[in-house]
């Protein structure tokens, strides 16, 4: 598994956070855990990096934050997507897919007949 770890490309974390929040409000710890679980640990986020990213996104107006209570009764800061964030997510997912398609095509191509 460790040899397949993928370095976090800049911007990837942002898309992942946006994606995670598209299911509903979530606190920072839960977001980190969700990313860990859904990518089977393939994408390793240094958990601390999550927070500067979250606050930056909040300042840009893509997500909103609010203090709330977790199911086990603890106070935590919950983030949720704004409409601006939703648009961001759409645009980034599309961009990502285009990139993947292009990369896949390029990597599978056979040499041109001469």
């Amino acid at each position, binding site marked *: 598994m460790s040899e397949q770890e993928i370095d976090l490309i800049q911007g990837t974390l942002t898309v992942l956070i946006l994606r995670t929040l598209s299911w509903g409000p979530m*606190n*920072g*710890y839960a977001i*980190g*855990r969700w990313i860990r679980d859904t990518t089977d640990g393939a994408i390793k986020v*240094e*958990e*601390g*990096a999550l*927070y*500067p990213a979250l*606050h*930056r996104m909040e*300042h840009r107006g893509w997500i909103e934050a609010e*203090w709330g209570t977790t199911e086990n009764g*603890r*106070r*935590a*800061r919950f983030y949720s997507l704004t409409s601006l964030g939703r648009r961001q997510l759409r645009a980034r997912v599309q961009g990502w897919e285009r990139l993947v398609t292009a990369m896949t095509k390029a990597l599978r191509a056979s040499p041109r007949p001469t």
Partner: protein
Amino acid sequence: MSDTRGWRPLRRLFAQRKTDVDAELAYHIQMRTEELMAAGRTPDDAHAEALRVFGNVREVRDAVWRMDATHNARVRRAQRWESFWQDVRYGARTLRKSPGFVAAATISIALGIAANTTVFSMVNATLLRTPGGVRADGLVRVYQNHHSPLSFHDIRWFRERASSFMQIVAEEPLPIGIRIGAEPERAQAAVVTEGFFSTLGVRMALGRPCSGEETRAPGSNSVIVLSHRYWLHRMAGDSSVVGRTVHLNGHPFTVVGVAAPEFASSQVGWRADFWMPIGELFTVRGERLDDINWSLYVTGRLARGVDRAQAETRMQTLMHQLATDEPEAHERMDVRLDHVRGLNAELRAPLEIASGLLMLVVMVVLLIACANVANLLLGRGAARRGEVAVRMAIGAGRGRVVRQLLTESVMLALLGGALGYALALAAVSAIQRALPPEIDGALQVGPDAHVLLFTAALALITAVVFGLAPALRASRLSLSDAMRIDGGRSGTGGRTRTGRALVAVQVAGAMLLLSTAALFTRSLRAAAGVDPGFDARGVVDLAVDVSLHPGDDAAHLAFFRQLAERAAALPGVRDAAFAAVVPLAGSNIQSPIELPRDAGNAGEGDARARMPYLNIVSPGYFRTLRLPIVRGREFDASDVRGAPLAAIVNEHAARTLWPGQEPIGQRFHFAGDSAGDYRVVGVARDARYNTPGEDVPLFIYLALAQNPRTQMVLHVRVAGDGETAGVSRALRALVPSLDPMLPPAQVSTMQQDMRVTLLPARGGAALLGAFGSLAMLLAATGIFGVTSYAVAQRTREMGIRAALGASSRELLRLVIGDAMRIVAVGLVIGVALAVPAGLALRGLLYGVTPLHPITLLAMPAALAAVAFFASWLPARRGARVSPLLAMRAE
């Protein structure tokens, strides 16, 4: 929660926002620890692992803090800006809805600010500006004995020794005859020392500066640099002027350059038409460099890194050395370095006082204008209670409301400021046009950055002065108060009280200005009626400059003698005599003298007591002016060059210099003068020489034949109660008939010439009168406004009174009486202020006591009459109201 304990001290240390971040991170680590514990780790192990996968906690926390702080700051800025714009837009909308109010307020402010800006422009031109066209930083003025110019000898002496810390140049103005082509005329020249233009940093518009090397023989460096203005006016800006030959006092000089348009002189308040090397003074006037005594105005450029105080200390050391080396010419002399802002130090001191007073006056006018606007705003505030209440009800804080109202005030003030600035520009250019031609171009009265800044700052201060109180008042209402059905009626007592206080302030200010104006007017009349000690009526003055007349002093003297004889022979002329100075006409000559007994015990006695004023006159002078000789004789044909030097002193000098002794035959000499002793031959009656109100100074008359000059005034006494017009015409033709090459002489009556001394009083009376009237007008508007408001508020009360049988006359008395009570308070305060003001101005007033009863009664009476009228107009409206209508008005 043992794992979060370490954070607690930090939580206490930092503000809420930071603890929020801390809590967020703490929650994460805690949850992660629990997750790992659930997977079977020990608590310590789990916590360590949670921290490890998190990364550097401190770094993350700091990064997030910084991000949040920057973001919050940006958000706050944007919000402030947004709310500011909102206020501006809202204010503009509100103001547009009441053009009448805006016009009244704007005009009030504009008048107040225009007065201030105009006066400040003059202060700026005379006291604050550095000479135009020079690099002013590092420049200093060098004086001896506080504010006096230096001799060439001393300049050269200092220049050689001070070069390590200061470059020294000097300039001296002198009128000179110039001929360009055929027409001779008088021009204002200046001689300059070596390196004058380069040291000051003056740019040349054309050609090169005159280098002015003083070692060259006179006549070998006959070049001049024209001023830009002279070049434009006299040579139509001819670009081929460089290399042209002009004649100065008949001697050919070559134009080598034209100075930059901004440069007029090294001294503020001077203007030269052209500059010539100082060494050429011999060519045009026969003066050697070492003859130039205490008439050179010196400017120094400090070396880099040297400040004025250091340079002054070093110059004083040098001065000390000079006084030791050459004691006779330099005893009791010191040296002083001054900044280059404004006029020369000697002119600045009296001007500073006058400017301060004038600024004070216009500030009072502005204060009255502010009171007016504040009153208008208070009225509006009452009308806008509903609006303010609604804004506060929907959540606007009091600060927010005050800010909104102040924004409106600032907009009004800026509007008024802009209009005032425009008015001031017009006023300043009018003043500029009225300036005598000698000063025109020498003083830059036009606006600069200082003036603009002053006006803008004033407008903002004004906005706070008139806007703050009404804004605070308007925002102080409680919701229930404002929403009450008769909200318009409650709390008006307060508005009226403040309004009345403001009116009292206005009346007091107007009273202060008007009574001061009255003092100046009375002083003017008293001064005009004073006996100067001679008889100026029926005397015509002819200003003659013979420097263009060929020949030496003897030839000039012969010319003067011939002119006086021809003038005396004219029909209708009784006497004619020359004088260098016309008394009470704004100019004087002063020179220190020493008595024989002073020798050997120098330092004894007051130096000022040895500083007489001088005049140089021809035989017949005392007879012509009807100034009696009380002892001895008048100058006559025997007082010529070679004969013993003769002097006539006034009675005061005779008494002061030789107390208890026979003055005739006493001797004195001028300090530093090698000509020798003067012998007193006569004593003239004391007269007024400089100002009508002065304490009689020491005064000495010298004989023209023994002290030759090229510029003199011929006093011509007309026979009988004579008509001066015909004689004036004949006199004008006299000079050209003797020498057609001389420029035409100026003819005026002596009384016209003497008007100059009354200028300060005349100016003071005119300015204070104008500003006082303006203040009165503003105060009257204020009274009108307050009374109108009171009438409107009391319509119902008056209706009831009318219904109960009060006559309209009684109602009138009620309203006017109310207004006049405030006016009375204002008048009392005004008089109380006017008395100390008058006492403070005693030095400027002549022959009036500041406690003059008529002034102190007449002015309040006049003001009261105006106030009565201003309150009568609206009161009449109120008294006419029909009881029925008034009751229904609710």
